[in-house]
């Protein structure tokens, strides 16, 4: 029934995907007068892809803007991006996205998004990142309502399995809906269907078999079906196909969709051991916001892709609460038992570590230089002996946030094929984020990419059609 009304029309703009980038494109195109169809693969409660789990938008501003204080100029923003990507970015595209972000914020507000001052525990982002009131799902809801008011048609559980091309032109999509495969025709298409991180088989092929033990922090619906279909048809790719962004998260989190609440911030105040009760890296190398990303890889390299962060009572109030209560015991042996670790090995590790701790001033919020002496690996900051029961333990696993492989686009978000740019195919969001984010991650930058390129794609697609 739903299907019939979709196939009877030739839509001006078909938007594949239903997250932030898709919605920005749909709204922009609809405001220009185009008839717009959103095909969201997820069921309605899970609509919005990974945007559901986001919380802020990194925004350039030359003066105070909405909830943002002070200034955050293009150059500083770009340097921040260079640091995390180690130069793996397209400077032209990146700078364009950064400059455009300033105009995005008022546009977002005008389309229903509400901002709030930075959340407790995120003071460091109050100048650079504008937080959404209620988080990413509130933003997604606001955009769907705006889109609905503009007459955009949104269909859920509509998985696009193929994008039809003829001589470098998009003609139709094949979409699975209610057990049927339908052919939906359109004059232009915006691809905003995310990366492939939820396809564990693909992840395992790209990264290695250990990826099967990774947790996926975001939506289970980003399986890269559209990305793969386009690449198979000769679209140009960008970004390292073997890499994904992974952080260390609570090992008890659900396989998919655990989101922000599963993060664990205690590592700098802990010792982290592997399955065999052995430490393997300097837990105090730097402040946590600068280190959580490398711990995803570190844990991924350990046996069974698991590790255990262990603290004592002194540290329990020094970090954000965790989604599940920690495992707790009065003795190290007791804790080892509860965590399923070899007790003698853990005891030895803790005793060795404790002996290596020195006197000094402990300062939880800055690099305090309180380092170990004579233990390997050393801990270079916040090294205090674990000697005050109760002891607490957290299981860590790698949690995948997104993948880098994507479609190559130009500054108008148009997708590039073997013979140059396609006539009527645009891409926005995670499916093309690799163009500007070749490595690492910058908090809130995913939403910047989605919003900037989503709006451009929507505008260009509508202009092409109308």
């Amino acid at each position, binding site marked *: 029934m739903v299907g019939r009304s979709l196939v009877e029309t030739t839509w001006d703009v078909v938007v594949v995907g239903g997250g932030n980038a898709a919605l920005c494109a749909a709204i922009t195109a609809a405001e220009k007068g185009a008839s717009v169809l959103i095909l969201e693969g997820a069921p309605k*409660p*899970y609509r919005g892809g990974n945007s*559901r*789990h986001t*919380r802020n938008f990194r925004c350039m501003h030359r003066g105070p803007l909405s909830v943002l204080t002070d200034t955050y100029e293009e150059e500083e923003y770009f340097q921040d991006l260079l640091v995390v990507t180690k130069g793996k970015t397209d400077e032209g595209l990146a700078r364009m996205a950064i400059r455009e972000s300033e105009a995005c914020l008022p546009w977002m507000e005008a389309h229903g998004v*509400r901002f*709030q*001052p930075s*959340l*407790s*525990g995120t003071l460091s982002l109050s100048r650079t990142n504008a*937080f*959404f*009131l*209620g*988080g*990413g*799902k*509130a933003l997604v*809801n606001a955009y*769907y*309502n705006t889109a609905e008011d503009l007459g955009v048609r949104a269909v859920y559980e509509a998985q696009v399995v193929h994008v039809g091309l003829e001589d470098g032109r998009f003609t139709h999509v094949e979409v699975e809906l209610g057990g049927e495969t339908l052919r939906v025709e359109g004059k232009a298409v915006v691809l905003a269907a995310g990366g492939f991180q939820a396809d564990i088989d693909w992840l395992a092929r790209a990264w290695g078999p250990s990826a099967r033990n990774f947790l996926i922090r975001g939506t289970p619906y980003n399986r890269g079906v559209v990305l793969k279909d386009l690449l198979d048809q000769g679209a140009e790719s960008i970004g390292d196909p073997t890499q994904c962004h992974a952080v260390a998260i609570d090992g008890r989190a*659900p396989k998919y*969709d655990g*989101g*922000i*609440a*599963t*993060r664990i911030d205690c590592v700098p105040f802990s010792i982290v051991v592997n399955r065999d009760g052995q430490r393997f890296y300097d837990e105090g190398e730097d402040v946590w916001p600068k280190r959580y990303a490398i711990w995803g890889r570190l844990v991924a390299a350990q046996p069974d892709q698991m590790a255990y962060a262990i603290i004592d009572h002194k540290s*329990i*109030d020094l970090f*954000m*609460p*965790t*989604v*599940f*209560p920690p495992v*707790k015991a009065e003795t190290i042996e007791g804790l080892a038992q509860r965590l399923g670790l070899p007790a003698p090995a853990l005891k030895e590790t803790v005793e060795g570590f404790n002996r290596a701790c020195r006197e000094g001033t402990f300062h939880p919020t800055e690099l305090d230089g309180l380092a170990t002496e004579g233990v390997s690996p050393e801990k270079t900051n916040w090294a205090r002996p674990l000697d005050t029961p*109760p002891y607490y333990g957290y299981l860590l696993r790698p949690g995948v946030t997104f993948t880098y492989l994507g479609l190559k686009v130009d500054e108008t978000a148009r997708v590039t094929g073997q013979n140059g740019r396609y006539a009527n195919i645009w891409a926005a969001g995670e499916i093309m984020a690799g163009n500007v984010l070749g490595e690492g991650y910058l908090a809130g930058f995913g939403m910047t990419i989605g919003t900037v390129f989503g709006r451009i794609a929507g505008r260009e697609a509508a202009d092409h059609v109308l």
Partner: protein
Amino acid sequence: MSSDAATPSLLQFAGDAEGEAALAEARRQIEICNACRYCEGFCAVFPAMTRQKAFSDGDMTQLANLCHNCRGCYYSCQYTAPHEFDLNVPGILAEVRQDSWSRCAWPAALGRVFHRHGVAVAAALVTGFAFLLLLIQSLRPEAGQGFYAFLSHNAMVAVFLPAFLLPLAALAVGLRRYWREVGGSPLRGRHLVAAFKDAAVLRNLDGGQGQGCNFEKGDRYSNERRFAHQATLYGFLLCFAATSVATLMHYLFDMPAPYGLFSLPKLLGLSGGLLLCLGTLRLAMLKARGERDLGAPRVWGGEMAFVLLLFFVSLSGLVLYAASGTAIGTGAVSWLLALHLGSVLAFFLLTPYSKMAHGFYRLAALAREAQQREAKP
């Protein structure tokens, strides 16, 4: 607050397994929120939650009573069903809040009956009518002006003074129990001022930025419920003021009723009655539209009955006024008077055991929150 395991249970559930299960479930959900915090901007519950890592039973009671059921944190939550975290914070806090009112009510058995059962509220109402009717028929005074021609001033006072004071005494016991449960410290004037300020504008139902709540329009915001509630609240207060002014005029200035249209009691009473009538009608309509599972479904009937009772109080008062001003027979007026006074009586007596109690516990929760904010901003 120590972050160690939750302090031992302060509450006597007396085998109330359901209540304990709700508390445990609420704690599970709040711990997830405390690790997430996306909803910090909606209301006072989230900033209050972030002051601790572990939640005692008293903490949960306090958070539940601070929640105004705006539902913003439901529609914005990325962890609602079918997600395995299965969050429904407004729903579970409504359950815990409801349990706390039943538990604190004195006597508690009455709380359990009237909160839940609309039928019980209706029965109380009918009993109120019957009682008043009987009174009017058996005690019809020889002489008297206006309504006092049907029921003497002294008889009215004899019925309504205890009907007003006894529930207040019962409420006071309940509030004391509440205060001990949440570990409140001695109350200062500034805490009450803060509480009244919040309640005056229903700050915790404004969505944090004045856009309103998500009560009846799903994930779209709306201020309708907030406005309907405030019409009800201020309408009620105006009616209450009218009665108070009339009492003062009667005793202090020897100016007994009836009063003319442009007298203070009538102006206050009429405007209050109208506001109350419209406010409660709107509240009932909105309640019919809102999703029941985001409140406490088991008390939906009791809540609805209470709103309708309040609507009936105001409507019967207005009709009575209109009728007494015209030449309708005294028979009709005596019936209307019995209906109105009977409903007022039922309303007064049910106050500690019905939704009406929420206002008092809310104020207590807001005052406690002001205390805690002071201690740890």
